[in-house]
């Protein structure tokens, strides 16, 4: 399945081709949703071909209820990205769009790999196009940002590779499902958990290994930021669910307090940091870190609930984390695209360079306020669903975890709405704002599509919830059973 997608997303030479390819990819990915069997946790739409037989590496792919929504998100965002780049990128558009297409294929690969080495290859390979996107089309400090981005994430994933190879030596298989079943003692699990943590914590990014993200976002072109925030960060959260938890359940349980604490630091500390930002992209980048804190919080609060034998709460936390990932994909992409729309016109990301955009761009302002509200977790938008579920699960675990997590209601609203106040509202701030023109049809559809998804998930989250129950139940089963 994904094989077809990757071929379809080969290097394109023209906008129209990229557009057609992205839409085709999206359409091809839809049967994954509509043909999905929600009653089973087994991998579906699987393919298995020997890839490097001498190393026992297989091209094994398939999806379950956890990865499938992420794949749809990926193909969907790709369409948006192509729309966003339509007139904006003047410099080598074919390479630019090609990079994104390849990127999409690789990310789908990450979410569908059932072979650990294949996963690693895709996981690493996504760095290349993103590296190029930031490095070639990025801002003035792109070199520092790319190197930081690259080294940070690369360092993490090397550890993961070591762990994968170690497990192959132990169990004789790279198959993810075999690794899930691999018996590991306490010490082995601990080191494996740490190795995966190094890879995934950087990707998410968790505090304190998050500082690459604001730099990368600031320098990345708009679409790069959108893909980075919307999808690349999710590879970390997905990694926890696909690898760390089922492979090292006892170590995960042992580390839960630590993980919860750093998740909460991400939510609270980063929330305050976001408040102090003067650059819109940095602000949204920090907001991303804070929101991703809910993903790790939801995942690891589950272990506290297992200890309390509250299986209903476990599922709530993990499903909350997954929905939060999907929702953040749409909202963060939308926020970055909104900034991009203004950047294309004014060539500044500084909040101070704006003011009263609503006067000259009323339709855009409506979108921006809508997405800002979604970012602040307004019920009825997707931003609320995951946070709400994770807060409910946290309260079951411990009052203070929920207390700190819920502070995002205030902090998230504060930094988002304060930005809206300074950028969108008020009298016309300067001549550049006075000369703005409202969004055109292309930009309208770009933001409109995202708005529809944000609303859909907010009003009816069961549309994702339905497909993941079987897989999450299976995961809960795996992580609540000790391996020794």
């Amino acid at each position, binding site marked *: 399945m994904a094989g077809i997608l990757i071929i379809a997303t080969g290097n394109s030479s023209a906008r129209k081709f990229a557009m057609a390819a992205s839409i085709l990819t999206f359409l091809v990915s839809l049967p994954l949703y509509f043909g999905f069997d929600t009653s089973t946790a087994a991998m579906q739409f699987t393919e298995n071909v020997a890839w490097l037989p001498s190393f026992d590496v297989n091209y094994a792919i398939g999806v379950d209820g956890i990865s499938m929504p992420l794949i749809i998100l990926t193909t969907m965002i790709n369409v948006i990205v192509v729309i966003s780049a339509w007139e904006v990128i003047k410099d080598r558009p074919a390479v630019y769009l090609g990079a994104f297409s390849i990127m999409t294929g690789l990310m789908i690969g990450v979410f569908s790999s059932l072979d650990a080495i294949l996963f690693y290859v895709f996981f690493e390979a996504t760095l290349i196009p993103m590296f*190029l996107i930031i490095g070639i089309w990025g801002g003035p400090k792109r070199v520092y940002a790319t190197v930081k981005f690259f080294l940070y994430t690369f360092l993490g994933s090397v550890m993961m590779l070591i762990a994968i190879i*170690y497990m192959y030596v132990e169990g004789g298989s790279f198959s993810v499902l075999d690794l899930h079943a691999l018996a590991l003692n306490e010490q082995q699990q601990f080191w494996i958990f740490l190795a995966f943590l190094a890879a995934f914590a950087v990707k998410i990014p968790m505090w304190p290994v998050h500082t690459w993200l604001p730099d990368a976002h600031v320098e990345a072109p708009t679409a790069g930021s959108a893909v980075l925030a919307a999808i690349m960060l999710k590879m970390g959260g997905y990694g926890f669910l696909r690898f760390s938890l089922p492979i090292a359940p006892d170590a995960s349980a042992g580390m839960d307090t630590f993980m919860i604490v750093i998740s909460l630091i991400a939510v609270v500390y980063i929330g305050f940091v976001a408040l102090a930002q003067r650059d819109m992209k940095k602000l949204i980048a920090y907001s991303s870190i804070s929101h991703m804190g809910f993903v790790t919080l939801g995942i690891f609060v589950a272990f506290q609930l297992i200890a309390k034998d509250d299986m209903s709460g476990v599922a709530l936390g993990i499903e909350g984390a997954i929905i939060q990932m999907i929702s953040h994909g749409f909202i963060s992409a939308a926020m970055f695209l909104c900034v991009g729309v203004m950047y294309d016109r004014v060539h500044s990301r500084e909040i101070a360079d704006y003011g009263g955009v609503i006067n000259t761009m009323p339709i855009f302002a409506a979108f921006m306020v809508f997405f800002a509200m979604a970012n602040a977790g307004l019920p009825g938008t997707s931003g609320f669903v995951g946070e709400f*579920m994770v807060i409910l699960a946290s309260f079951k675990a411990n009052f203070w975890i929920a207390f700190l997590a819920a502070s995002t209601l205030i902090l998230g609203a504060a930094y988002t709405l304060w930005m809206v106040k300074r950028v969108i509202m008020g009298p016309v701030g300067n001549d550049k704002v006075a000369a703005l023109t409202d969004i055109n049809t292309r930009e309208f559809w770009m933001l409109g599509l995202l708005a529809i998804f944000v609303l859909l998930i907010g009003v009816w989250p069961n549309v994702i919830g339905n497909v993941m129950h079987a897989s999450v139940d299976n995961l809960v089963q795996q992580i609540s059973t000790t391996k020794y």
Partner: protein
Amino acid sequence: MKLLYTLIPFAPLLAAIVTGFFGRRIGRINSHRVTIAGVAFSLALSVYAFFHVVVGGAPTFNESLYTWLVSGNIRFEIGFMVDNLTVMMLLVVNFVSLMVHIYTIGYMHDDDGYQRFFSYISLFTFSMLMLVMSNNFLQLFFGWEAVGTVSYLLIGFYYKKETAIFANMKAFLVNRVGDFGFVLGIAGIVMYTDSLAYTDAFAAAPTLVGETMNIVGGAEWDVLTVLCILLFIGAMGKSAQAPLHVWLPDSMEGPTPISALIHAATMVTAGIFMVSRMSPIFELSETALSFILIVGSFTAFFMGLIGMVQNDIKRVVAYSTLSQLGYMTVALGVSAYSAAMFHLMTHAFFKALLFLAAGSVIIAMHHEQDIRKMGGLRKKMPITYWTSLIGSLALIGFPAFSGFYSKDIIIEAVHASTIPGANIAYWAVLGGVFVTAFYSFRLFFLVFHGKTRADKHTFDHAEESPKVVTIPLILLAIPSLLIGFVTVSAVVFGDYFEGVIFVDPARDVLAKVGETYHGPIQFISHAFHASAVYIAAAGVITAFVFYILAPSIPAFLDSKLGFLRRILENKYGFDDFNQAVFARGSVALGQQLWSKGDMAVIDGALVNGSAKSVGLIAGLARNVQSGMLFHYAFAMILGLLAMLTWFLFI
């Protein structure tokens, strides 16, 4: 009935969508037609629901509309509960909303954002209806936040005004502080019941009596008390109880019709409604009720005091709203939920009336809002004058007016209560009567009586507002006058809320008050044996002496007691404190964490520092960064090396 109930909130939503997206295309007139039709339709259905549920005695409707989400064994539903409490709110919300819609045609006549405004108020109506019709905590929270959002949009309606866009952000954030508690309260309910449905929570609540949870150190806290206080913190935000009241006066930056609809009659009473709805839970914690009582009485008295020194016509009414919300909260605290709901209803009518009348005055004065620059408008604006008088008399609790019944019952109920704090609350609500009477008639005399202080041009051009403005005033004046008389027997002393609101018989103060109650007329004569009526009269007379007979007295008092006035004008320093500590403090903290934590420690010492200390590798990395792809290849080799090393050592 399900379809009918579904249409009640969705008719205004549909209208809001039509005007919101196609407002420019369909034009101004069609925009107000569509939205008014939506709300009128909704009102008509609510009246039908009234006959079906209240008169016809249909059993409580409690059905799910659709399943929002299922996770674990928790079902998140969207659904409606329609009983007598809901029906009362439906009628109040839809009626006031319809009046405000009609009034807006006149008030916003010359505004560029005409269609936008209609779209917002219809959207508000939808949100509020979803809130009151909910049968579960999820939808309640949705409505709760949705009304807050529309309020945000409407306070900032004049988005070019710096004060307006500050006020709307402040309103939203202060409400979020309340919601912070509210969402934790909901999470607590889910923790102990694994359900979000009201009925499940109510059924499970009695089993939680005596259960404790560990919050701080080793101290065990009563679960129900914690949950009730958390939920009530939400109510404090939305219903503007001290110290979360600070947003409401500033919300007057919004256009006057929404001050009437949102910031007086409906949205701000959501907290009162919520606690009444949750009475089966709140009744189980006396500590929480005491807390509610103290908060309410503080708000009722001290916020009223601020109203005495305000000069902006809308702000006077706003502080009076704070104070009246305090009265309702006090009623909740003494378990007189029916009295709270009854006051909510009468207040909705007369306060909406007062705001709309204030708006009518503002139109006539060409958007002058300072009451020191008004006066003598009685002859110019007879309808506004008489309706204002009715509204003011209702507000101060003049016998036979609707506010009289509701306020007197609350005072009596507090008097009869034995809950800790009731004695202080009694003096607060009694003192509040004088304060209310004073500021209401200070406003009334300054605006309508005496010689005008407006400039000649403005005064000469001042005239009665058009019919679309005065008709809603008249229609609101009627219930302000009569609704108390008509409904008091059933709502407070009858069985209107039977099976809806639960009161612990040991705390049932209304039953005690009801022992001496023999109909509304007797209640009036009874009131003359109590002090409240005379205290109100004293307030009116004081205002009359100060502002009509001897205007030199206030100036004289001011010269002697100016420091008191300044304390009140500074609103006891709440705003300055919040601004200095919370607003600036958070930004400064963020700044520190960013520059010290992120940039200095993590990036400076750890990230870049480790890069430097590795030295050789860092140097190599710097050398190869000129060629981007090459760099990657180099990194891959590093990775392979690591892999091989691993193999060799195993």
